[in-house]
C-alpha cells in the first residue's frame, strides 16, 4: 500500500500512538483554545503558556483521527520553547505545505511563499502526504488554527 505509507509515515503513526504533551494547564496563567472540525466531529484543545515572548509550555487535549492527533502532537513538540513569532512562522510554513495547490491557484505572494519555505519544518515534513488528500487537510491544520487562536488571546492580554 504505497499510497497509505505516504500518508501514514512511521513518525506520524508514532505521534498518534504516543502523543507528546497530552494534558491540561491551569487557566490562567495559561491560555486555552478549542478547535472543532464540524465535518467529522474532531475536537482539539490547545493550552499555551506564554512568558514574555516565549511559549514556555503547551498541552493538547481532545480527540480525533491519527492525522489530527499526530499533527497536534508534533506541533506541541515543535513550538515548545519557541517565541510567538517563530510559532507563527512555523504555522504559516505548515499551512502553506498543506495548501500547496490552493496557494498556487490563488496566486499567493511568491516572496511570502519563499519565506515560508525557508522555515525548517523538521518532523512535520512527514505530514506532507496529507496535502494530496484534500478532505484530510482540515484534520492536519486543525491544531494549528487552534494554536493561532490561543496565541492571539495571549498577545491580546499581554
Amino acid at each position, binding site marked *: 500500500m504505497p499510497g497509505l505509507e505516504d500518508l501514514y509515515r512511521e513518525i506520524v503513526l508514532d505521534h498518534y500512538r504516543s502523543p507528546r504533551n497530552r494534558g491540561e494547564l491551569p487557566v490562567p496563567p495559561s491560555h486555552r483554545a478549542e478547535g472543532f472540525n464540524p465535518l467529522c*466531529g474532531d475536537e482539539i484543545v490547545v493550552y499555551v503558556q506564554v512568558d514574555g515572548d516565549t511559549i514556555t509550555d503547551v498541552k493538547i487535549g481532545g480527540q480525533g*483521527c491519527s492525522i489530527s492527533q499526530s499533527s497536534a502532537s508534533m506541533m506541541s513538540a515543535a513550538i515548545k520553547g519557541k517565541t510567538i513569532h517563530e510559532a507563527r512562522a512555523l504555522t504559516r510554513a505548515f499551512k502553506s505545505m498543506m495548501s500547496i495547490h490552493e496557494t498556487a491557484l490563488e496566486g499567493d505572494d511568491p516572496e511570502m511563499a519563499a519565506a515560508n519555505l525557508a522555515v525548517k519544518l523538521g518532523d512535520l515534513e512527514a505530514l506532507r502526504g496529507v496535502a494530496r488528500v484534500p478532505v484530510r487537510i482540515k484534520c492536519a491544520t486543525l491544531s494549528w488554527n487552534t494554536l493561532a487562536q490561543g496565541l492571539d488571546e495571549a498577545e491580546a492580554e499581554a
Partner: protein
Amino acid sequence: MTLDVSAIKKDFPLLERDFNGKPLVYLDSAATSQKPRAVIDAMSDYYENYNANTHRGVFGIAEQATNAMEGAREKVRSFINAPSINEIIFTRNATESINLVAHSWGRANLRAGDVVVLTELEHHSNIVPWQQIREERGIELRYIPVTDSGHLDLDDLAATVDGAKLVSISAMSNVLGTVTPVRHIADIAHAAGALVCVDACQFVPHLPCDVIALGADFVAFSAHKMCGPTGVGVLWGHEALLDAMPAFLGGGGMIRDVTLQGFKPAELPWKFEAGTPAIAEIIGLGAAVDYLSAIGMPAVRQHEVELAAYTLRTLKGRFGDGIKIYGPSEASERGAVFSFGFGDLHPHDISQVLDEHGVCVRAGHHCAKPLMRKLGIGATARASLYLYNDESDVDALADALAAAADFFGL
C-alpha cells in the same frame, strides 16, 4: 440471493467502471445511491430531444416536457400509493421537504408552548427546521429516546405525545439502520390529536412504501438515495392539509393571479412549486421509480434483509469483539446500513485505508450529532448497502478491514 445482483450491477455504469483494475466496492448508498443507465439516459434524452420549460408552452416539445414531468408525478404517486397526484410536491431534497412542513404548516399552526415531538435518532434535517421554529415561536421540542439496542424507547410514548401538535420521526435511521414502528407511533400520536410527519429518506429507497398504511400525514424523501438524480426531493401530504397551508416560496408557477396589490396562490401541487422546476431531475426520478418498480420493492427489501444478516454474521465472525456494530442485531429489524467502531481506529483512518482497497465507506457523524452524543462517540465508520451490493462486497469490506488492522497493528 433474492435478486440477480450481477445483472443489476451491469445496469449501473459506475459499478461497471474500472478503478485501478477492479470495480469499486460502493458501500455509501445511505449518503447517495448510484444511478442506473436508464436514469442517466432519461435526463440526457430530455436535454437532447425535448428540452423546454413546462406548463406555459403551447409548442410541441414544451408539451412533451410537461407530459414527461407530470408523468413522473404520477409514477411517484403510484410508487408510494398516494391518493392523488395533487399531493406530490417536488422539492430540492428531503431537507427542503421537511422545511416546507416546518415553515408553511409550522408557522401557520404552531404557537408558543405548542409541542413537537422528535426522536433522538433523527438526521439534522429533521431537527434543525424544528429548532428554527422553536427559536421563532417558542414551541417545545420533546425527543423520544433511543435504547442501547438502537431501538426507540416507546415506554413513555403516550405521555410524550400528550398535547403534541406534531410528531416528526424517521422511518429508518441512517446511522443505526433501525426501522422504526411508524404505524404504531402514528396511531398513538393521532389518538392524542397530533399530526405525523415521516422522514422517509432511508425508507422509500429500501422498503415498499404505502403512505396510507404507514399512517403518515406528511412524508419526505430524496430522489438521489433511490437511484434518482441529485436536485429533486418529494413531499407528500394529505390533500386537505396541503390545501389549508399557506404558500411557502413565492414566484412564477405558484400563482393564480398577481397584481401590484397581492397574489392568489395556484392549486396543488403547483402552489408549492415556485419557479422553474427541476424538470430533468423530476423526469430522472420518474425513471428511477420505473427501475425500482420493475425489480419490485418487496424483492429489494428481502435482498437487503438477507444481505444485512450476512454482513452481521461475517463481520462478527471475522472480528468478534474487535468490531462494534451499532443498531439492532436482528436483520429483520433494520436496513443494511452499519455504523461501526473498529478497534481504537478513528473512523477517518478506517475509511482512508478502505479507500486504498477500493472500498467506499463514510466516516463522520452522519448528520446525527445528537445521536452520536447519546452513543457517546464523536464519529463512526458506516457501510451502507443497496440492491446492487452482494456478498462479495461484504467480503471485500471484511478483507479491507483485516488489512487496516494489519497496517495499524491492531
